[in-house]
């Protein structure tokens, strides 16, 4: 069985949030209920060259949904077994079992499962099951005007784009083995030393 994954190009992503909105539209999500979210990173510092100061501001964006991890902490932690791995290898939530305790959100380093206030249960990216079984891409991927997202067999994506699995501010991939490949923005490498922070926390 192949393992699906996303490719996220943080060099080309302009942070326009089209993927986020496409996901909300496709899945009929309420405003503020995000299965895919854009994390805006901002940072920078000053360089002192013999009394001449130069500035180094930077910004980049990480488009993130559920990474359908190979070692999903959410599945392991869910007390009801509502969170489970489906036949296509996606991680999904059985609405008939979920009690809306929110434990999956704490367990997930990516904060992917979100409470659906209408049902009182959790919901999150299901990889657009209906679309990918028809050999179409998930809605977010096709909506991106910058072609910054890609989707497919993680092995194929790895061959095409390399094997970077994390970028500031994401957690170490060792925790859950996320099925994402990232093209890192050049400033992300030094992000932590340059006072980088999440600029849009209230949106996430």
């Amino acid at each position: 069985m192949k393992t699906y994954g996303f490719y996220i190009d943080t060099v080309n992503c302009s942070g326009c949030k089209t993927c986020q909105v496409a996901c909300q539209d496709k899945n009929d999500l309420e405003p503020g209920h995000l299965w895919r979210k854009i994390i805006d990173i901002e940072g920078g510092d000053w360089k002192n060259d013999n009394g001449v100061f130069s500035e180094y501001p930077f910004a980049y964006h990480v488009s993130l949904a559920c990474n359908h991890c190979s070692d999903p902490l959410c599945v392991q932690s869910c007390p009801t077994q509502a969170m489970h791995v489906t036949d296509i290898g996606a991680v999904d939530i059985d609405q008939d079992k979920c009690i809306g305790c929110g434990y999956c959100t704490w367990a997930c380093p990516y904060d992917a499962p979100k409470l659906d206030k209408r049902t009182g249960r959790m919901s999150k990216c299901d990889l657009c099951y209906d679309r990918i079984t028809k050999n179409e891409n998930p809605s977010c991927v096709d909506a991106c005007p910058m072609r910054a997202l890609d989707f497919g067999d993680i092995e194929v994506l790895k061959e095409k784009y390399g094997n970077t699995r994390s970028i500031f501010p994401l957690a170490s991939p060792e925790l859950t083995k996320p099925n994402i490949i990232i093209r890192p923005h050049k400033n992300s490498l030094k992000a932590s030393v340059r006072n980088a922070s999440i600029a849009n926390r209230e949106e996430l």
Partner: protein
Amino acid sequence: MEKYNLALVVFTWLTQASVGLIILRAIYMRRSSAGDDKIYITGRYILLTAFILLVTGLLFSFAHLNYPRHAFNALNNIISSWMSREILAEIILLFILLAWYIINGFTIKKTPQIIMEILAGLSGVALIYLMVRTYMLPSLQGLNTPAFPLSFIITPLLSGSAIIYFFLRKSEPELAIKYKLFFAIIFLFSLINHLIFRAFHHTLGVFNIYSAFYLAALIISVPSLYSTLKNKNVMSDVIFLNLAIICDFLNRVYALTYTNPAL
């Protein structure tokens, strides 16, 4: 509150108060010099209080579910979920306390009491361990420090000794004083615990409601302890204990709220 809601904080706190009460009750039963009848009655009241705290805690845990209609599913994943195990342990302890209270009403013989005491004590400690494991997830960096399990040991001892102190204050002042001194020492640990949390996560700045309460409790502790040692019961007594308890509760709120911003 970012990731947690207050119902959950109250749940952990009440449950731990209950466990602390059970453990410190065992000491009372052995150290009291009152008559057998008196000890029995006080012991029974303490037991009832522990039971009520546990039940109330459990009710609060329901309040944090967004879909309580499926609540019993929470026991589905004993194999891999610490939360399932925690809830199972909570229910087991509830039944042990209930059985104990009933047995206690029928007989005052030592053996059954001691058996129930050991059963309740062990499952109480197991419950606290499972609670620690439930929250010490690798994804929650802020809680993955030794300060966190420490706070789950401090709360039972702090609230347990405060409640027993209030039970004994009038009737057995000498023993009560020992519980209060123990309480004061544990309160210092609570303060240190809070400072450790703060040292790593200073998102709120230095002076805020948390520091205000700790400072107030610290100041009031001086006359309170002084009057206790002089064997007088004054108002600062009640104020100190309540303030210290509020501090420890706030410490829990702080740990579960501000140490783990989303992502």
